């Protein structure tokens, strides 16, 4: 590929599935290695971090619970942006991005609920409580499952693209609700200590491992997402080729 094709602008370049496959194929190994490295660093930092004076060792769960929750919301935001891409600009790969992110986002949401539950039991005496934060994350999980169900119900992926995009955007209102739920309501879940206007209230010795784990999870997400997008592109090609083959038989 000559330099002139790259200078077309990466955005339009990414609209072409073949070019996307080529580009993503080149980035993927580096991304995967980076994910593993940052994850290793993050895990080391979080185990080296001091134990909380109140919670003891259980605070370790924070380093996998909070990043999972961050990613659950970030994944949905990525899907929402992709949905805008589908509806407004009809970007050819936007619905591929949205569809392939679904199982990954659902997994992160599941993990945030599960690790939160495992944190809550020893700390606050209960596996679950229907406060605003937990309820809205649970609703997010339901939305992921609903969108997965929608895609499964429609066998033509390009026809499912726009309804799924509309539904994703309608559900996006849940994301700010999740974020601000601990401020707006009196919840068992603790209030925000990282993303606050006044700056984080968490001690740096715990903040840095947390941020590194957050970065690690983000890299893991993008690695998995790129891989899933490639799978989805291949899946659609197989479908198109099969249809073409079936049509040519009739001639």
């Amino acid at each position, binding site marked *: 590929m000559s330099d002139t094709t790259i200078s077309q602008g990466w955005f339009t370049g990414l609209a072409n599935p073949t070019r996307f496959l080529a580009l993503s194929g080149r980035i993927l190994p580096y991304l995967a290695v980076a994910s593993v490295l940052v994850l290793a660093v993050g895990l080391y930092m979080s185990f080296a971090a001091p134990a909380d004076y109140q919670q003891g060792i259980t605070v370790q769960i924070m380093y996998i*619970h909070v990043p999972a929750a961050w990613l659950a919301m970030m994944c949905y935001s990525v899907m929402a942006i992709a949905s805008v891409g589908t509806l407004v600009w009809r970007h050819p790969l936007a619905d591929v991005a949205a569809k392939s992110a679904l*199982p990954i986002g659902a*997994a992160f949401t599941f993990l945030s609920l*599960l690790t939160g539950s495992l944190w809550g039991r*020893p700390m606050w005496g209960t596996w679950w409580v229907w406060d605003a934060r937990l309820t809205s994350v649970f609703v997010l999980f339901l939305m992921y499952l609903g969108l997965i169900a929608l895609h499964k119900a429609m066998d033509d992926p390009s026809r499912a693209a726009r309804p799924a995009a509309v539904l994703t955007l309608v559900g996006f209102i849940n994301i700010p609700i999740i974020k601000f739920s601990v401020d707006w309501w009196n919840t068992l879940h603790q209030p925000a200590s990282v993303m606050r206007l006044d700056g984080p209230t968490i001690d740096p010795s715990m903040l840095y491992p947390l941020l590194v784990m957050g970065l690690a999870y983000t890299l893991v997400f993008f690695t998995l997402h790129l891989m899933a997008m490639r799978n989805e592109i291949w899946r659609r090609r197989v479908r198109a*080729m099969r249809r073409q083959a079936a049509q040519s038989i009739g001639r």
Partner: protein
Amino acid sequence: MSHESFVFLSYAATAVTLVGVLVSILLDGRARKRELAELEAQGIRRRSQTATGSSQ
């Protein structure tokens, strides 16, 4: 259950889930590549493919 076992369970569940997602994506990719290879072996080409055929 001791507090340590809760921590252990959380990390284990996270590892299992993330590895599970990774494995399912890898297997899915392999299956798709296999299908593409089969179709190409049958001589079916995508309309936009060149004669040398690269569906990378």
